[in-house]
């Protein structure tokens, strides 16, 4: 029994890491998607911004597929409840992801309607981030569940104020990721615009992160006795402060790392509040799906651990490889 609990805890951590990889990596390309019409003033600037994410965005989305796949394999109960229960919302996310992906390709080939594809890229990216944030907010804040672990709410249940604020915090953090990446990949006038955007987004993130941590303490008072939570808050403060110093000293090195650290803080605080739950029940706590009552069998978890041990280094390896190839400033060419 103790054996399977170790594996269940391991897989909670691994899935958290996979989704963290997703929000950090796809975070910056989604962020650029939303920022595109605001920082790209002409076709050339937009070309530069899109070609900065062109070679990497689809690789970044593999982390989402891996995370959802791992969730399905390790905790099928939670996967079934969330994906069936949030069906209309998930469908909306999927449509947004599809339109976002094709709009980058079509924009390059269909110049007469490039304005339309840019709108799809921006709107699709915006919806994906907001809805994923709201979805995470709902499983952490809690949704009504019945005794069969099925979702007992409606689409409108998902849009309560607290989960909505998760979505807004996610959006702010993702935009900060996007702006940091844009500053790294651009130069000259465009970079100046990106720096201005980064400056504004930094202020917004100081606000949203502050309110977010406050809300978490209010919703989950047990966090106050959890050292991980304090570490998370410090990480976020450190990351945001470092970006502020960078802006003051006009130093663009490791901006993305600093932005990622502040995001990591938000993520850690959420994980600390949520463990060991997968989908929290808002109506009665004993109905919640946890890593203990929602997991698959011991053998499956063991087999998955072996696969992860082989697969993760390969994924991390090729991710680093791709970013090394495409490092440096972006040019306005179609990849």
């Amino acid at each position: 029994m103790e054996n399977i609990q170790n594996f269940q805890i391991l897989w909670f951590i691994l899935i958290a890491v996979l989704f963290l990889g997703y929000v950090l990596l796809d975070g910056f390309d989604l962020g650029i998607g939303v920022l595109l019409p605001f920082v790209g003033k002409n076709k050339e600037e937009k070309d530069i911004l899109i070609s900065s994410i062109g070679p990497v965005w689809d690789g970044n989305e593999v982390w989402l597929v891996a995370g959802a796949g791992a969730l399905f394999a390790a905790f099928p109960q939670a996967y079934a409840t969330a994906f069936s229960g949030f069906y209309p919302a998930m469908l909306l996310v999927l449509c947004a992801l599809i339109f976002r992906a094709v709009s980058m390709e079509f924009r390059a080939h269909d110049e007469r309607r490039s304005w339309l594809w840019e709108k799809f890229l921006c709107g699709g990216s915006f919806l994906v981030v907001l809805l994923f944030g709201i979805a995470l907010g709902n499983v952490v804040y809690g949704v009504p569940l019945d005794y069969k672990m099925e979702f007992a709410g409606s689409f409108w249940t998902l849009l309560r104020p607290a989960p909505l604020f998760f979505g807004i915090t996610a959006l702010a953090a993702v935009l900060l990721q996007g702006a940091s990446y844009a500053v790294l990949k651009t130069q000259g006038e465009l970079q100046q615009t990106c720096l201005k955007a980064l400056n504004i987004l930094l202020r917004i993130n100081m606000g949203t992160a502050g309110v977010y941590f406050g809300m978490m303490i209010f919703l989950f008072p047990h966090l106050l006795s959890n050292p991980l939570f304090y570490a998370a808050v410090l990480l976020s403060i450190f990351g945001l402060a470092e970006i502020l110093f960078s802006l003051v000293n006009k130093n663009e090195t490791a901006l993305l790392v600093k932005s990622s650290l502040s995001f990591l803080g938000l993520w850690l605080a959420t994980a600390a509040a949520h463990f060991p739950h997968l989908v929290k029940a808002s109506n009665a706590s004993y109905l919640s799906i946890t890593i203990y009552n929602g997991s698959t069998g011991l053998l499956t978890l063991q087999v998955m651990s072996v696969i992860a041990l082989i697969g993760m280094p390969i994924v991390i390896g090729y991710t680093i490889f791709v970013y090394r190839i495409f490092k440096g400033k972006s040019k306005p060419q179609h990849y």
Partner: protein
Amino acid sequence: MRKGLHGETAKTMLKIGVIFFALTPLIQLSTGHLHAIQVIDTQPEKAAALEGLFETTKGAPLYIVGYVDEQNEKTRGLYVPRLLSFLYNFDLNSEIKGLKDFPRETWPPVNLVFQAYHIMVGVGVFAIFMGLWGAFLLATNRLYTAKKYLFVLPFLIPLPHLAHETGWISAEVGRQPWIIYKIMKTSDAISPVVSSGQILMSLIAFFVIYLLLFIMFVFLFLKIVKNGPES
């Protein structure tokens, strides 16, 4: 090519295309053959539905075209006697299980499975014929001037998709009512909280999205084809 556009590039591409067109349907034929044997061994109900075979038969026929009368449990059409048994293990008299050996509630919709499967096989046989014809023209140095053959070729582009889709339908409808063979029924696997209205909505959404993307694809594809390769 017919209009003499982009001469050399087109010739090379056509040559490669025809060689593959001659070979791949033959490879498909052998994998398809092995797969059919596997289906007869492991999912006899599906195999029986594919050929509309109701009675367990020694020396079962293979239908070229036909129609399954599900009410009277009869299959009518043009067939080759004993060929199915022969293809199974090269024995004209081997026994193939019929649908009546299995409880009626575990039968798939027979006619749909039969028709889909026969369209797939028909397309495959036609592709083998067209591929070999192309190879023959290439071998006798008449390919680049064979006006009729070159005119027909572009119209064959949708055929592999038709074969994919009908093959998919016969495989997936053929395994009904099971979603996991002999373990779980499809009717037990649905999500109770997702309403049929939501499913319909998502199907319509996917249909509209894919239709839009397909129109966009055809539009850009034609634009690229018109511009031709860089010489």
